[in-house]
């Protein structure tokens, strides 16, 4: 059995990675991700920092016209780590066996 990924397993970070992993192509805007995972600006920012430091997400800052825009996408290693962590969670449930 593979181990738990403590960086991803935190509740907000797990939701962030689940959402980013579902988006197979383009990046997602910070404001849309914020409403999707139900977090505040500061909360989301700190969790994204942690994920970026781990190399799980790439954060791009750019201008859309005159408005600054932050876009986030999962990196290949982030997708891999997320898939492994989800597999680990499933293994825990599988070990429990069918409910009596």
């Amino acid at each position, binding site marked *: 059995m593979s181990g*738990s990924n403590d960086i991803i397993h935190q*509740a907000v970070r797990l*939701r962030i990675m689940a959402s980013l992993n579902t988006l197979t192509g383009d990046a997602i805007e910070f404001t849309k991700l914020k409403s999707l995972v139900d977090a505040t600006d500061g909360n989301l920012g700190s969790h994204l920092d942690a994920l970026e430091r781990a190399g799980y997400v790439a954060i791009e800052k750019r201008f859309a016209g005159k408005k600054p825009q932050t876009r986030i996408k999962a990196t290949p290693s982030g997708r891999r780590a997320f898939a492994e962590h989800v597999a680990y969670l499933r293994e825990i449930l599988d070990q429990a066996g069918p409910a009596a």
Partner: protein
Amino acid sequence: MAIDQENAASSLNDVARMEKRTLELVRYSYASGYQLLWGILVAIGYVAQYLRPESGIFIWAIVIVSGVLGGVVFRIGRARSTGRPADYRWVWGQLAVVAFGMLWTGVFTDATPRQLSALWPSFFMFWMVIFGIFFGRFYVMLGLIVTALTTIVYLWSGDLFLPCMAVIVGGALIASGLYLRRIGLTQ
């Protein structure tokens, strides 16, 4: 960190919920283009029918063919942008609804143009509600609101029925398309 079974189950539920919600927003983004297209076409159709009532069948044939062809163009564009093969089930679904509606339009020879102009959008909105039950409550609300407004306009708008339908059905589709474009996610 040790994760017990309860925590693992709760986390997997969270993941499934996020995946579902994300896909819902991706679907909204794709649907926005269809809704804008159909909204514009339908509004033009009702106004054109109001101005040229004798050409109603011809006008709506153009509207329907344009809408379905537009759907094919959207599918091809989406396939190119995602690199995946085009999925034409949505187009087949539209054609099935159109064929069903045309069958009963042909059978109901006693129906007036006004009755048919109320029946068609109600029929489309019925399928919108069914679609929404599976893919997002936004469509349920849209279908119910447009059907309710169509009924009200049919009963009480008098001679301004067709312009009112242009505003209600066309306007609702355009407004909802713009809203979905704002909240949706591209993939």
